[in-house]
């Protein structure tokens, strides 16, 4: 899992079957010091409670779908937690 900052939201009315009800957010992946790292991406919100501005952690690949209520869905990144506190040296 990696840190990411939620920087936006995404709505898609027409989408592939299986993505109904999935909440999408635009996130900027971060390094361990929470500096931007790489390109922003679209992640499904596995917490259902994340919003713009929040520091979250994301999981990728097959495990992303497993973070959602319906686990056999086509997603590649998901938010699995909202960070309260980080202590990194």
């Amino acid at each position, binding site marked *: 899992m990696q840190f990411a900052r939620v920087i936006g939201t995404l709505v898609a009315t027409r989408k592939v079957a299986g993505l109904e009800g999935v909440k999408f957010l635009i996130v900027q992946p971060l390094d*361990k010091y929470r500096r931007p790292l790489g390109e922003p991406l679209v992640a499904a919100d596995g*917490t259902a409670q994340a919003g713009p501005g929040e520091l979250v952690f994301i999981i990728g690949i*097959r495990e*992303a779908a497993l973070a959602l209520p319906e686990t056999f869905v086509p997603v590649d990144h998901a938010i*699995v937690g909202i960070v309260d506190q*980080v202590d*990194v040296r």
Partner: protein
Amino acid sequence: MYIGRVCGTVVATIKNELYVGRKLLVVDRLDLEGRPTARYDIAVDVVQAGVGDRVLVLDEGNSARQIVGREPDGAIRAVIVGIVDEVEIGD
């Protein structure tokens, strides 16, 4: 699996239920000389590792789910599975 060094801790109240009651640590991936690389993971700890420890990190979902007893549907991948005592690399 890779060798890492624990460099920090993460606290999160709102999170996937699988992480409730488990410790989340930030781990730097190390190169063969033991230096931190730019890569890191937020990993679940199951061996009571602490900041500064050199650890063995598993980053594969099926194995991770096996470790926490959550097959086949746990959203978990990176797990600290050992504390490294010694590494010897041949010439």
